[in-house]
Every structure is written in structure tokens, then in C-alpha cells.
């Protein structure tokens, strides 16, 4: 299980003056669902393109299945399935013909190909749409077709670049479940997204990217432990004096307290009973309050703390 499937070392990619990838290092092991999380323009697609030898790069090296990846490394290509960010299907062909074409680029045996195509259609749930042309499919179904085209040949390494962009929640869940299923069947997955919930939901390990750099890496838990924020408490409070706010800021484990938009926001690092202490303070001072929320940190908080901007800002 510890075989390294992809090894990216010191990858530098420049588009004229813009450095899209800045000394990027990644190591993806067999059996992982590896998440590449980053806001728009952080370099996810560029990473994938370099990894697949679709793009040349300025420095560094890429190894796939233990061999240097080149445009002619057909041994590696045979075992890779890609689902790119932009839907890549023929408008002119039907659902079936599309999957058949892309599968046929890998599988020569006719009977086997037919079986694989049918299985892929079954897998993404497009059985009723075999004769449809892509134009007639909804956004979600089109994305599923796009995925089917990439996985029909049963690759060992599946790379998905934001496969759920502009997809309704139902299709999105179906897609995410499918990815987990493919992983269970033995495929290693690389999954890029700027939706942290998705990445948190399915990925076993995550690298967070910003401006072409990897800024953090680990499991969800590891990432969250990296930051001091472990709990954010929000309480609806109409009126509160500055003194009480500053008193709240002095409570144990609290490192930030502020009143904003009718809400008292308290950020805590570690510790227990934080919420109870805050509520006690409010009650003792006769402060009226409404609803209370307590949130554990998200990957967004991780991103926020490291970069100073929210992951979602750019959406």
C-alpha cells in the first residue's frame, strides 16, 4: 500500500512572467484519495497538466508509477484516467459513442471494450441516455458522461480536475460517491477542487495550494491541528459594551473576541468548556442574547489562517 504512484519534485512552471507553479512537491501513494485544494488560479490545473505531460515545465521532475513521465510514456498513460475541468466530449457523438471512442483509445479488444463501456454507463447512471447527444444532457449528466469517458478503461490512477463545477447537489453527491467507490475498487485518486467540503468528505490526504505553492499538507485532522483556531463561537447579541467584549477576550483559550453585525464572535484555541464560560460571562453581566452557534474549524479556517484570505473569496 505504500507504493508511490506520483512523485512531483520542485516543479516550476512559468507562463511568461507569471509563475504558475513555484517549486511544488507532491507525493501520492497507492490507494489514496488525494485532494488538491486551492482557490481559482492557484495552479491546480497547471499541476495536473504538467503531471500528464500535456504541458512542458521549466524546472523539476515528474514521476508516475516509478518512471519519468514524458509525452511518450505510454506504459504510464495506459493506466491513467483523466477527467479534466472542461468537459471534453464530442458534440457530434452520442453518449455511448463518446465513451466507446475514448475507451477504444486504450482497449483494443472489441468484446472487452463493449463490456467496459456498458459498465461505465452503468456506473455513472446514464443507462437511459445512451443514444442522447451531449447537448441534450443537463449539466450534471454531462459531467457524469465526462467522467465515464475518463474511467471506462479501468485505470489504476484517476485524476479528476474539479469534476463537480456547476453541478446540482444530487449529481454532485452521486459523483462523490462514485469516486469513493472507484477508490474502493483499487484506484488511486487525485481530486482537485476549491470546495473544501468535498475534499474533506472524500479525501484521505490533502494538499492546500495557493499561488502555485503548497502551503499545507496532511489529513484533514492533521491540517486542522496545525492552526490555533479550534472552535469559533458565534452568539447573536444586539447590544454589548466594549468592556464585556474585552473581558470575553481574556477568558482562557480565547484569542480573539469581537462584535460584528449583531454577533459576538469568539475564537478559541483548544481547551474545553469554552462555550459555557462565554455564556456565563454574558449572563452575569445581564447581556441579552439570541441564538448560539459553535463551530469546529474547517479547511477554510486553515486556509484563512495561513494565507490571510478566505478560500471562498475568489468564487
Amino acid at each position: 500500500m505504500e507504493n508511490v504512484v506520483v512523485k512531483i519534485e520542485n516543479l516550476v512552471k512559468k507562463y511568461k512572467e507569471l509563475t504558475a507553479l513555484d517549486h511544488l512537491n507532491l507525493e501520492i501513494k497507492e490507494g489514496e484519495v488525494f485532494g488538491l485544494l486551492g482557490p481559482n488560479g492557484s495552479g491546480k490545473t497547471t499541476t495536473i497538466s504538467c503531471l500528464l505531460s500535456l504541458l512542458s515545465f521549466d524546472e523539476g521532475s515528474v514521476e508516475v508509477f516509478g518512471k519519468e513521465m514524458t509525452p511518450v510514456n505510454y506504459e504510464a498513460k495506459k493506466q491513467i484516467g483523466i477527467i479534466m475541468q472542461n468537459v471534453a466530449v464530442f458534440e457530434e457523438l452520442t453518449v455511448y459513442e463518446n465513451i466507446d471512442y475514448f475507451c477504444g483509445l486504450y482497449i483494443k479488444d472489441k468484446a472487452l471494450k463493449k463490456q467496459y463501456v456498458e459498465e461505465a454507463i452503468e456506473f455513472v447512471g446514464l443507462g437511459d441516455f445512451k443514444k442522447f447527444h451531449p447537448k441534450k444532457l443537463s449539466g450534471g449528466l454531462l459531467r457524469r458522461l465526462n467522467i465515464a469517458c475518463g474511467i471506462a478503461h479501468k485505470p489504476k490512477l484517476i485524476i479528476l480536475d474539479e469534476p463537480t463545477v456547476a453541478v446540482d447537489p444530487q449529481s454532485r453527491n452521486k459523483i462523490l460517491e462514485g469516486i469513493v467507490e472507484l477508490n474502493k475498487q483499487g484506484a488511486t485518486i487525485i481530486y482537485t477542487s476549491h470546495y473544501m467540503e468535498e475534499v474533506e468528505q472524500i479525501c484521505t490526504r490533502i494538499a492546500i495550494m495557493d499561488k502555485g505553492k503548497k502551503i499545507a499538507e496532511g489529513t484533514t485532522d492533521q491540517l486542522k491541528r496545525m492552526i490555533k483556531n479550534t472552535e469559533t463561537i458565534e452568539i447573536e447579541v444586539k447590544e454589548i459594551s466594549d468592556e464585556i467584549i474585552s473581558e470575553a477576550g481574556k477568558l482562557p483559550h480565547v484569542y480573539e473576541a469581537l462584535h460584528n453585525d449583531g454577533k459576538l464572535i469568539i475564537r478559541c484555541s483548544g481547551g474545553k468548556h469554552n462555550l459555557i464560560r462565554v455564556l456565563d460571562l454574558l449572563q452575569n453581566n445581564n447581556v441579552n442574547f439570541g441564538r448560539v452557534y459553535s463551530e469546529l474549524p474547517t479547511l477554510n479556517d486553515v486556509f484563512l489562517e495561513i494565507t490571510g484570505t478566505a478560500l471562498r473569496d475568489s468564487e
Partner: protein
Amino acid sequence: MQVLNVFFKVLKKKFPSALAYIIVFFSIAIAMANMGGTTESFEDTRVTLSVIDRDKTETSKAFVDYISKNNKVVSIEDDERAITDSIYNEVVSYVVVINEGYESKISTGETEGLFSNYKSPKSSKGVFIDGKIDLYTKTLSAYILNGNTTDEAVKKTSETLGDEVEVKLESFKKDKSSEFSESFAFYFQYLPYGILSVLITALSPVLLTLNKKEIKDRTNCSCIKFSSQTAQMILGSFIFAIVLWAVFAFAGVMMNDGALSERHLLAVLNSFVFALISLAIALIVSNLAKTQESVGMLANIVGLGMSFLCGVFVPQSLLGEGVLNVARILPAYWYVRANDMLAGINNDVYSIGNFMKFLGIEIAFAVVLFVVAIVISRMKKRAY
């Protein structure tokens, strides 16, 4: 052969957009075949014409002699109304009016504005008179500019052209046996427009689809070799171009009673080389066009533009010198010239050697265009 297979599947979807061109092409070809009359052939160069000499000098008289030779001359009144009437009533099909000042102009070597001619729109034979006049004045002015007096120049011109005209007429007469009918000549003259338009509108969108970045990326990620991918696309393009040409050429021959003399075969060969040129142009277009819509636009610009300039629609003999000089840098010009020579309707004397010369120029164009297509696609590949 996965790529070749999908090539034809996509082609099947794109082909209907080219149908409009095919329909237009064949309607015109059929109309021409019915109009052209089958017995009349281009070799018959005698034209019924009138000459009105407003200059009335020795020089202009020499011209009248020249132009009257081998044509049936009818005299009519020098009156605007009388001239147009006689053309309209088909009394004559060409009226040559020598403008006053002809002698003084030509003595300086000037060849513009010497005539105000009228011709019947119904007769295609006017082009012979145009050609003859052009040839005469060009030769005459060349002698004058070379230091001859006007009288000497007129004499030398008559001698030179007198012989040449005889020779030409000889060869025209001999051609009668070739039965190169007007409609056959026209069909093949018009063919570049058909082949070029259909190839661009049907083939370029297919290549555009196959080369779309997303699809190309996905294909490039698979285990199919890049060279095999390209080879299959080129093979598909060739098959399509050749089938298309074969259909057009076959239809052309059939519409003319299946006549296949040496000249007919050469005309067919000529069209084959032009089909290859069209293929190269379609390849270039598919490399340059960014969207399917721009393909349609380019098809019109290239197809119509080149056809107009090179004498596909309008006989070359009716096009101005300036236009023809530009047209020389376009392959269709040489195609039409070869075709006209086979039909015996231009000043080129028919011989296999001459034909091969024109065909050679066309082949050179084809080679250059294919190289350009390859270079552009290489450049595009490197660009990202």
C-alpha cells in the same frame, strides 16, 4: 483506427452544411449544360462584328484589316442607338469602336482608352475579339516603344500577328476532333469553386472538432501515439478529398455523355491536382479558424475570392490585366489556364508540354500549401 473512425462519424454530422454548396454547384452546371448547346464548340472562333473607325488614319485602318480577318464583318451606322439595337437584335455580337485619337495615343505606346466596344452578353465568343484586340495593341505598342516609327510598327505587328493568328486558327480547327464541349469546359472551369467550398465547409469543422483543446488533451493522455493520431486524421482528410473529387469528376464526365478523349482525361487530372490544393487549403483553414463560424466565413472569402480573381466564374480573358497579375500568385489561376487551354479558349497553344507546365505549377502550389499547413500546425502545437 479509432481516430479515423470518429473522423468519419463527425464528418457525417458536418457534411450537411456543405450540401448547399453542392446544390448550387450542380444547379449551375446543369443550367450551363442545357444552355450551352452541344454541337457548338469553342473552336469556332468566327464572330459577326462591326467596326466603326472614328480615327480614320492609316494606323486605324491597319487595325480594321487585322480585326476583320477571319470574322464576318457587318457594317452599321455610327450611332449609339444603331449600335445598341444591332447588338440587341443579334445582328452582330461585337461592335469595335476605334476612338478618335487612336493613332496619336498608340504612337506614344499608350494602350488605354483606344476603343469603346460593345458586345452581346449572350455570346461567349466576344472573348476572342477581346483577346485579339489586346494582343494587337500590346504588340503594336511594344514595337513603338522599342523605337520603331508608327508605320514600321504597324507593319511588323501585322506580319507577326498575321502568322500567329493563322497558326492559332489551325490549331483551333484541329481541335474540333476533341469534342471538348462548352459545357464540359465550363463544368471543369467552375469545379474549383465547388471542391474548395465543400472541402472547407465540411472538412475544416471536422478537424477543428478533433483538434479542440479539451478533446486533444484527452486523446493525448491516452496511449495512442501522436503520430498515429495525426496520420489517421490526414488519411481521413485524403480519403474524403479524393472521394469528393471522384464524385465531382465522374458527374462532370457523365453530364457530357461520358466523352473521354486525351484532353478530357487531362482536364480530369487537372481537377485532381486542384482537389489536393483544396485539401491543403482546408487544412490551413482548420488550423487558422478558431470557431466553426469562422470556418464558414473563411470558406466564403477563400472560395469565392479566389474563384472571382482567377477566372472561375468570369473567363480569364474578360478579367483586367491587373487582376490577372494578382491571380498568378493563386493556384486556381493556373488551374483555369490549363483548363482553358484544353478547351482551346485562350491564347495558350495546346500541347502536353504546356499542360505539364501548368500542372507542375499547381503541384508546386500544392506542395507549398501542404508545407504551410504542417508548419502552422507544428507552431500551434508548440504554442502552449
